[in-house]
């Protein structure tokens, strides 16, 4: 039991307690002299009253000291802090709002179940402790209840409400929930308490600022209970999962990169990181993890030609399982579309560069389809091209071409399109008017004797070479180049392939959102034998993969706790679809028309995608568990991967010293997982204002009575 003061600084005024004594002493200094003939009567009076009067005066002085002290004490707003729950007493029923953190990090296992389980036990104990007049509201940091009106529940209803609270894999919004609770705690209750149960993981609380609360009511006792801090943070987690390109293109490979983080104090050896595609284990990589260190892992996955690609990364089970999985799903869309520009269309088709390029890009597995659709145009046809239909452009020996097309090409690249610029006799940077490329040319040079190529140092893992395996360098060293246009990286470009004397021949760079490769030779047999070498097909496939991958698409994944949307053609407005969640729960949602505009976007709290205009869209707002949410319509195969937000892997708690600075006078108490009586961790703060006010009134009455008596 201890005191807290809302305005503790006022306690310095306790010095004023001695004011009555000071006044008394000053009055003694100001004593006046009078002569009195009837002195004898006064003397007898004084003798008669002295004993009683002296006692009465001492009592009066004491009462006045107490009155001044009480006034100062009262002004500093003392609050009596007692352990053992928040139930109301006597005439002061309590309204308690239990804020339960049900974010992903609360699933962390302790010796008595998860932190969430420990929290529920504590809240259950609070409900048991309620009196009949008390009321309780239960709200959560994740889910729709966070913003719902607080229901003031009796004990029986509170038990039922607590049973409905469940663990989620979402990210909490503690500031919003606490603010909501502060604003809605019943003003009718004699005592109002808000008890926030949380692990205070960084992911949720790092940005929490008490001053951000719009309304701070000092009459509401806000306390924070840190759940099972002794359980620690030892955990393996997948972080920074990235997939490139995303979504994957039909028939193309993409990489899944992630970092595996060891939060434990011990080194972990050979931790298996598994990649599942569909339900089949595709690959396992074992990593060694030093304490508090992260190791990268990377998987390469070949996308199917059509249908849905879904799978997951998985770590071994540990304290916090929700960070051990990462789900991904994508519908395989259209194949890449490449525009091949022939800059020298007069030549015979077998001598044409486009012949070799198109054949290389059209290569397909046996019985399969090529992942790339090519379209060849001559340079003089460029004015008729619809640029937005293509994912990338391969320009071969392009010399003279329409000025309008030059501008269109640049715009195409800056918006995210890819460009492979192959030089030749006709082509030069100056004649092409392409001063924005990442490599500059210096005019053709004949190499005598011919030279081979090598991959620039440190660029062996570049996606352009991803189809060459580990022996890509050997393939290039077998090439012969008789004539080149020497390049020089510019505007952020860098060399990927070069002559043995380090003269750049292939330069890569970015222009706007697009990727550009500048090839310093031809794509036919005039200057090099590349087009007839085995390396040409996988090289061009890598080029295609790299350039086409820069296109951004719509990913079918979402964070747990957020709503996700499913789009469909406008004709499906009004149609209902059934969604099955990871716990096999099913729910129907309905397509509605979505028209673009900021108001509608605000209304449902979602960001509009590029194709938002005139589409049918259905929102699913109950996805608070990680996993796959499947659309069950027979003719439709659609997966949405839902993962715990990346921030939920930051489970180490915020520094309590920092937190206390933010919370200043607020309470933060620890609730151990094995505490037999959780109520001990929950404080009750009794406002002593009324009692002190009554005491002050009593003192005034007594003082007036005694003063009148004297």
């Amino acid at each position, binding site marked *: 039991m201890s005191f807290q003061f809302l305005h503790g600084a006022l306690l310095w005024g306790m010095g004023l307690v001695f004011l009555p004594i000071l006044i008394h002493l000053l009055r003694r200094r100001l*004593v006046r002299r*009078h*002569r009195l003939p009837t002195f004898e*009567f006064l003397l007898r009076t004084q003798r008669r*009253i002295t004993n009683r009067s002296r006692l009465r*005066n001492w009592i009066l002085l004491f009462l006045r000291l107490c009155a001044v002290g009480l006034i100062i004490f009262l002004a500093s707003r003392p609050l009596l802090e007692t352990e053992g729950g928040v139930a109301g007493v006597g005439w002061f029923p309590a309204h308690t709002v239990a804020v339960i953190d049900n974010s992903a990090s609360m699933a962390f296992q302790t010796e008595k179940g998860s932190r969430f389980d420990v929290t529920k036990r504590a809240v259950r104990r609070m409900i048991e402790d309620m009196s009949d007049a008390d009321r309780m509201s239960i709200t959560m940091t994740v889910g729709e209840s966070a913003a719902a009106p607080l229901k003031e529940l009796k004990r029986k209803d509170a038990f039922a409400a607590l049973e409905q609270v469940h663990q989620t894999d979402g990210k909490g919004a503690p500031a919003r929930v606490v603010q909501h609770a502060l604003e809605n705690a019943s003003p009718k209750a004699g005592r109002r308490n808000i008890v926030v149960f949380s692990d205070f993981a960084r992911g949720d609380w790092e940005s929490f600022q008490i001053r951000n609360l719009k309304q701070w009511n000092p009459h509401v006792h806000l306390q924070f209970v840190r759940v099972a801090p002794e359980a620690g943070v030892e955990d393996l987690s997948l972080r920074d999962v990235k997939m490139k390109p995303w979504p994957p293109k039909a028939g193309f490979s993409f990489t899944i990169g992630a970092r595996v983080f060891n939060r434990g104090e011990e080194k972990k050896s050979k931790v298996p990181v598994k990649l599942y595609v569909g339900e089949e284990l595709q690959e396992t990589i074992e990593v060694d993890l030093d304490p508090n260190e992260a190791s990268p892992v990377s998987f390469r996955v070949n996308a199917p030609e059509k249908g849905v690609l879904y799978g997951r990364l998985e770590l071994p089970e540990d304290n916090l399982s929700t960070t051990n999985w990462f789900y991904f799903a994508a519908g395989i869309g259209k194949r890449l579309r490449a525009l091949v520009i022939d800059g020298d269309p007069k030549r015979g088709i077998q001598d044409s560069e486009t012949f070799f390029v198109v054949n290389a890009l059209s290569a397909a597995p046996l019985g399969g389809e090529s992942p790339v659709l090519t379209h060849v145009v001559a340079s003089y046809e460029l004015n008729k091209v619809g640029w937005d239909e293509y994912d990338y452009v391969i320009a071969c020996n392009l010399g003279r071409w329409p000025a309008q097309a030059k501008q269109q090409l640049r715009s195409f690249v800056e918006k995210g399109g890819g460009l492979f610029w192959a030089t030749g006799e006709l082509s030069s940077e100056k004649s092409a008017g392409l001063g924005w490329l990442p490599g500059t040319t210096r005019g053709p040079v004949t190499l005598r004797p011919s030279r081979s190529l090598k991959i620039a140092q440190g660029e062996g893992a570049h996606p352009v070479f991803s189809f060459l395996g580990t022996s890509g360098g050997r393939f290039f060293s077998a090439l012969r180049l008789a004539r080149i246009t020497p390049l020089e990286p510019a505007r952020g470009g860098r060399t990927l392939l070069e002559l043995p004397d380090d003269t750049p021949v292939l330069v890569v760079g970015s222009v706007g959102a697009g990727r550009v490769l500048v090839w310093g030779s031809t794509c036919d047999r005039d200057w090099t034998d590349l087009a007839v070498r085995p390396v040409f097909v996988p090289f061009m496939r890598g080029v295609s993969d790299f350039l086409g991958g820069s296109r951004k698409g719509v990913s079918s994944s979402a964070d747990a706790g957020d709503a996700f949307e499913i789009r469909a053609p406008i004709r499906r407005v009004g149609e209902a679809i059934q969604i099955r969640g990871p716990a096999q729960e099913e729910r129907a949602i309905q397509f509605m028309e979505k028209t673009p505009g900021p108001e509608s976007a605000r209304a449902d709290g979602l960001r509009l995608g590029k194709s938002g205009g005139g589409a049918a869209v259905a929102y699913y707002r109950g996805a608070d568990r990680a996993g796959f949410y499947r659309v069950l319509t027979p003719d439709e195969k659609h997966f949405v991967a839902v993962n715990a937000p990346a921030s939920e892997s930051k489970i180490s708690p915020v520094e309590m010293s920092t937190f206390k600075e933010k919370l200043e006078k607020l309470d933060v108490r620890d609730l151990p997982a094995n505490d037999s009586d959780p109520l001990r961790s929950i404080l009750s703060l009794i406002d002593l204002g009324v009692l002190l006010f009554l005491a002050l009134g009593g003192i005034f009455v007594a003082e007036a009575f005694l003063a009148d008596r*004297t």
Partner: protein
Amino acid sequence: MNTDQYFDPLVISRLSNLQLRARHVVEGLMSGVHRSRSRGFSVDFEEHRAYSPGDELRHIDWKAYGKFDRYLVKQYEDETNLYAHLVVDASASMDFGDGPLSKYAYAATLSSAMAHLLLGQSDSVGLVVSHEFEDMQVPPKSIRKHLLTLLAGLQAATPSGGTGIARSMLAVAERLKRRGLVVIVSDLLDDPEAVEKALKLLCLKGNDVIVFHILDSVELEFPFEGLARMDDVETDRNITVECEVVKRPYLGLLEEFLEQTRERCADLGVDYHLVSTAEPLDRGLIRFLAWRSRSRV
């Protein structure tokens, strides 16, 4: 001090139509409005005085009327209705006053007015100015010039020392050969038992006793506030008191004292009159004489 200060014209003008009548038949030699047991032996002419209504016609000096054309009455030295003794307290406690007049000044003024009144009726008036251990005495005479002697006696006294009013009263009682009027003007801050004893003796000797109990308004009301050091005016004693605290019990004790004095006087047949120095001087005197005239004609 100017002797006229004790003769406020307003006071005198208001008293001129009133007559003092003795309550009892007193021993005297005069033939006047007062009834006397012994008829007078008065023979020594002293002076004429103007006739005033009530004087018997036979006392008019017709010869003088023929000579001066005015009604004059012969005044003899022995012609007295009453022997009056004014006993005025001149202790240090009487030298106190919150207003323009100290208690002694008030008492002296009152005594002078009484003397003037009594001498105007040819009564003999004597004076005793009481001090702690000895008194200043002026023997009673009824001639008008005697007033100046009385006034001089009052003026000569300086209030000082302790109270000796009871002793003075006893001395007067022992000294008096005839019954008469004894007027005590004092604050009576003496031993109450001694005062009672003296009064009793005066009454036993058949004197008509009037007590003017003079107190200042400060003594009666105790108007002080806050913490105050009170000094005794007759001794070196002092005490520090919280005025608000002691006021009520002090006033209670004072009231108790006044009530006891009043009761004792009533028991002895003494006319007791409490006079505050805040009261106009004449008002108390008129009220007293009016009461006297109604009840003792």
